[in-house]
């Protein structure tokens, strides 16, 4: 029996909205100790999503037996849209479930809505992700990053990121012209979340597909800051910290043939 109760439905709502354009079908792994985890890779095998919701993310969490719930995110999104952000949200599944029960409770109006979502049989590969040492780590307000990613996409299908000691330069060049945005490290004393932090071991020059970055920044509603870890020629990590968990994206870079 799985029973996970969220204090507000907004977390799940935002989560599913953030990732449903990248992956369609995924397996949610549930266990008493680890909470709910998910690993999914997009069809083109360029972007990997790793989600962890510790039991601490929930107001109440109980999972008697490890469960794998195969869900169609499109359907889950439809159901989650039925609830309000402030509603309590409870996910319930039996030990050998055919359905996932999604329950919303409106605390003020005493209204309870209940949905039963059919589960899917999904086979998915699990990739082992080793902790990698990255050449640089950037933490910045997620909304800032989202704006850059969205703006630059209008210029080009690729976004180049250049990181030097105290600045990050985003560059795009396309048929209509070129553009660049430079951000510098700074500490905002009034609001720490507005600070930009750059840790650098080695300068980095990487290029990513703008489409994927735009998928990633859909998660910027989940956390105020995003941490980006980059190394030349290996997948980058974009992490959005959640209360008691994380949503991570691993994105393979683009590269030029000739450089090899």
């Amino acid at each position, binding site marked *: 029996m799985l029973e996970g109760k969220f204090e507000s439905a907004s977390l799940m709502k935002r989560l599913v909205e953030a990732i449903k354009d990248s992956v369609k079908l995924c397996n949610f792994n549930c266990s008493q100790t680890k909470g709910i985890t998910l690993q999914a890779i997009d069809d083109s095998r360029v972007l990997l999503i790793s989600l962890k919701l510790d039991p601490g993310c929930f107001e109440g969490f109980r999972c008697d037996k490890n469960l794998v719930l195969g869900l169609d995110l499109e359907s889950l999104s439809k159901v989650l849209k039925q609830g309000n952000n402030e509603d309590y949200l409870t996910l319930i599944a039996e030990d*050998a479930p*055919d359905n996932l029960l999604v329950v919303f409770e409106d605390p003020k109006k005493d209204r309870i809505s209940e949905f039963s979502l059919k589960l899917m049989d999904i086979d998915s590969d699990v990739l082992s992700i080793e902790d990698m040492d990255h050449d640089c780590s950037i933490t910045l307000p997620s909304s800032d990053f989202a704006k850059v990613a969205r703006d630059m996409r209008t210029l080009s299908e690729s976004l180049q990121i250049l990181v030097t000691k105290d600045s990050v330069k985003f560059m795009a060049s396309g048929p209509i012209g070129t553009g660049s945005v430079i951000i510098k490290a700074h500490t905002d004393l009034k609001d720490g979340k507005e600070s930009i932090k750059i840790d650098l071991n080695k300068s980095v020059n990487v290029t990513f597909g703008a489409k994927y970055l735009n998928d990633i920044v859909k998660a910027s509603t989940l956390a105020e800051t995003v941490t980006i870890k980059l190394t030349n020629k290996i997948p980058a990590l974009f992490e959005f910290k959640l209360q008691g968990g994380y949503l991570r994206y691993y994105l393979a870079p683009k590269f030029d043939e000739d450089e090899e």
Partner: protein
Amino acid sequence: MGIRGLNRLVAENAPKAIRSNEMKSFFGRKIAIDASMCLYQFLIAVRQQDGSSLTNDAGHTTSHLMGFFYRTIRMVGYGIKPCYVFDGKPPVMKGGELEKRLKRRQDAEEKATKAKEAGEAQELQKFQRRTVRVTREQNEEAKHLLRLMGIPYVEAPCEAESQCAELAKAGNVYGAASEDMDTLCYQPTVLLRNVTAAESRKLKIDQYDIKEVLKGFDMTIEEFVDMCILLGCDYCETIRGVGPVTATKLIRKYKSLEKIVDAIKQDPKSKFKVPDNWPYKEARELFLHPEVKPGSEINLKWEEPDVEGLVQFMVKENGFSEQRIRDGAAKLKKALKGGTQGRLDGFFKVSGSVSSGKKRTASDSKDKKKKRKTGRSRR
């Protein structure tokens, strides 16, 4: 052409080895394509409404140019980097097969003439398609076109399929594309089918993983090749009466063709008869050690298309629409820019798999099982 029944046999014995994917999921991949097979395909399939091939003003066929141009651009549009491999001289062993093909073609030609006289349009089309043969000029034209498009090609010393496989093995490309199941015997890491199929057929690309194929059959590559020879390849005849089922059984029992041949010869009651001077050893040798150019000596490079060259060749000489050719060239150019999208596969290894279906089958009680069944059917 091809090995009879191998496709079905693989599907039965090694279902895990076959994956069907959308073409777009192969983006960023380099793929070696059997160009000689494409030439045939295009000459046969790319036709006008009335069934005659496309021609330029001088009456020369241009079906193959159309095919190479548009299908290549389609692949490139999906981010795939194609490289073509052309047949060299056919192996001596293939003489018998080639003779058969020539005969078949002559037959078809006769029938085509008859059909024409009788005025049966459909029959005529059918047989005309069978009379198709690729000329040296068409080969050269295709190469010329690819050069102008900036798409690399390799001239195989011998068979194109084996060279494709070599490129895949050596890591020059991700996989070998051919419709011919023979290619599996040359052990490309990955064999792709339907890559050059017409878009309108909406076929998914079937991907065969040779390691999984062998695992599924529980055979070594030598045993697998022997089995394919029994099934019937281009290089030698088969033992009459041995079909896919018997072939698998025999290989499983005796492990090699030598022993099978011995066993049949020693057993006077055997219903099989081994052909005289059966050159199975030579055939096997051709599959296991084909004559190829080593991948390490080949450098594949995708370059900017020569737009003016393309216009000259395709529009002025062969009567294609200038607008379309220019649009195509622009697509080629665009795809070349901005680098190749890398994939995660190379960095993260698959460490296992999770299945939401299996977990549920793992539970025991009976009434739950019933429920489960309905659950699945509701999908």
